[in-house]
């Protein structure tokens, strides 16, 4: 944030309005937020000195409030990020006191190995299906819960509950459900004379299993956010449309969906980021990553799952970071253009 922004912020604080209330009120009323940051003309004499003193003090207050946060972000986000990039250039066994520098060797090895295509493929499948699944089902649930139904509040609470549960607990319970020997699912299948599929042992089914559980857990989040979006759709627009003879499908496609686009955009960014970083359910349900090694889980397995290759693992983390960075940038640059903010 530049100095001019600080000035803009201080203009709206009650203490500064005393110096020239009329003028500030006009400035605020006329200028949109972005332009309020224009530099102000210098003031003559005593008033200016007082202003400068006040301004300095306010700037200090700003620094005092912002600095701890900035420091914490530098310390706990950027410092590990940069250290991690450095580690990714090392051939380092986890826990060892020394390491050798290999430059981009870890990256070359990752992209050369058959693991890369497998891991990137699993990551893509997991991300697309969980984001798409949770958003589509979330919208359906939100549309249902937006109706005047009996027990609606209870149903909303039930839908949202899994989202606040611990992923470890959810994973363990679902493992019991899927267990082919003593799981609930296998018991139900036995009832119709079938043996349970090998959910854990078959890598393809294992991926299906974690995707299902992940969608189940995160559906509530999408549903609640969509519900909020739906409730801000102005009813008069829908009424006007139905007076004009628009069918309910038409009203949904032409009015509700465009008005929900900021919500959809927000959900797309947040669920994409969280899906790419999904860890707890995968770790608990498939501890050795059999068919479920996403980028983040493979990074974990390489360092902590008996390979102990901390440098290689750091390189995979950097690949994940770059993927997240590029995707977020693309979304902000291109997808947001298609979003209608009413």
């Amino acid at each position: 944030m530049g100095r001019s922004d600080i000035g803009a912020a201080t203009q709206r604080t009650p203490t500064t309005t005393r110096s020239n209330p009329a003028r500030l009120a006009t400035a605020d009323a006329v200028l949109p937020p972005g332009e309020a940051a224009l530099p102000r003309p210098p003031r003559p004499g005593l008033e200016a000195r007082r202003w400068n003193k006040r301004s300095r003090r306010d700037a200090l207050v700003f620094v005092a409030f912002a600095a701890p946060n900035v420091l914490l972000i530098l310390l706990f986000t950027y410092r590990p990020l940069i250290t991690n990039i450095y580690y990714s250039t090392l051939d380092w066994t986890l826990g060892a006191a020394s390491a050798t520098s290999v430059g981009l060797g870890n990256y070359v090895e990752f992209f050369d190995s058959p693991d890369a295509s497998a891991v990137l493929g699993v990551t893509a499948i997991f991300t697309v299906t969980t984001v798409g699944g949770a958003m589509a089902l979330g919208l359906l649930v939100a549309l249902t819960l937006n109706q005047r139904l009996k027990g609606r509040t209870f149903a909303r609470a039930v839908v949202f509950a899994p989202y606040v549960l611990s992923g470890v607990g959810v994973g363990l319970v679902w493992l019991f459900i899927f267990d082919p020997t003593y799981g609930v699912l296998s018991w139900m299948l036995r009832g119709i004379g079938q043996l349970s599929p090998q959910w854990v042992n078959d890598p393809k089914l294992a991926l299906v299993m974690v995707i299902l559980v992940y969608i189940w857990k995160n559906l509530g989040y999408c549903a609640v956010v969509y519900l909020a979006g739906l409730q801000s759709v102005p009813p008069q627009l829908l009424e006007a449309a139905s007076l004009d003879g628009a069918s309910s499908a038409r009203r949904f496609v032409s009015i509700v969906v465009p008005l929900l686009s900021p919500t959809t955009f927000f959900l797309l960014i947040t669920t994409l980021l969280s899906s790419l970083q999904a860890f707890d359910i995968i770790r608990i349900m498939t501890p050795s990553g059999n068919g479920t090694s996403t980028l983040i889980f493979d990074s974990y397995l390489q360092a902590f799952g008996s390979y102990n290759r901390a440098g290689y693992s750091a390189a995979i983390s950097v690949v994940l970071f770059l993927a997240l960075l590029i995707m977020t940038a693309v979304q902000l640059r291109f997808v947001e253009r298609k979003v209608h903010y009413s």
Partner: protein
Amino acid sequence: MSAPLSRKSFLTLTGASLGAAALAACAGPSTSGGGTTDKSTSIDWSKIKPAATISFMSSHPGKSRETELKLIEAFHAANPDITVNLITGGSNYEEVAQKFQTAQAGTEVPDVVVASDVWWFRYAVSGTVLALDELLNAVGVSTSDYAPGLISDYEYNNKQWAVPYARSTPLFYFNKDHFKAAGVPERAPATWSEFSEWAPKIKAAQNSASGYQNAYQYPAIAGYAGWTLQNVLWGMGGSWSKEWEITADAAASVSAMQWVQDSIVKDGWAGVSSKNAITDLQAGAVSATISSSADLTATLKAAKEANMRIGVGFLPGGPVSASPVCPTGGSGLVVASKTAPERQLAAAKFVTFVTNAQSAATLSAATGYMPVAKDADISAIVAQTPEFATVVDQLKVTRTQDFAKTFLPGGDQELAKAATKIMNEKAEVKATLSDLRAALETIYTKDVKPKLKS
């Protein structure tokens, strides 16, 4: 909100943030070469006074937390000047290893750590644990006090790196009622070919039972495949490796793994456990399995409560080798090298105490682990649990595990990946094992060979 922040509190805040910065600056690796130094060589242990407090990080193998607390209590009674804090490092050896290794980046590491057959060697090579020879001397314990086959597992570079603690072998567990119903002898099969004759009969006899799956259940691949499949490989003349030479795709190894695949896919009398083969056996879903002797006491107790007759026996042999075809497993105790000599000496006292004859008998009785001390009196245990005699007898016919399984970082993972492909995905055996050999050889050349001391 507009109240100004005083200069003093601003400085305090800034100071606190900078303090946090310093705190977070924990050490990464050094790239200046050199590597590890063996600290134990230059210390005169007779002049060191043991520390007052040390920590013991364990996964409580074989559900042994209560027993470990009892052993610590006994240690406190014998050594009133030393306090031992038991730390739960996770639910299995891998989780403990994870904590111990990440702790190396900070300043505080646990003093005594449980280390499985795959971990002690990596610690020794990376220098995070101490060679114990001089420490054992200092506390008046000799390696000859331990069961010879078990203590020698922890030798590398002419040094002793751990002492045996919760050591196990796999056992053949079977449902006696299922065997009886099929009209086959109520004992463990002597060879796998004998069992493959029994298996179809056992499965046929249970076919109408609801939820019944297979005559034999291979243990869950993660964590068990590399270990227990050595039994089939060795019996048929194969192995994962011979010393550092990878033999996973040698003809005998390929035919052994082909036999495993056939038992599941072609002959259809075997399956693979998703999580815990012993639980599958207890649920009556399978008639036999292989699991650690650490499960013995708990399994027999549960079976008794459920009115189920479970028997145990030696691992079956094969056409090439009938014996020894049984690997040992489980864990030993290591002493961290990063702590002060005072703590290391106290750690040595503790390590030798919990593995002495009396402690070993206590742990064996509570779990089913083998008695690691040579003079451990197990007559009371055998009187109470006659099946325990099988554990002790089988110890005499064990074989050292293949290096590929124990000494290669990630070797166990690679073996599990290959086993998954062969056993769950019907992959072509020879090609899968050739890929496995390539992967293991890469690990050896890249991660192990450069670090081995000649």
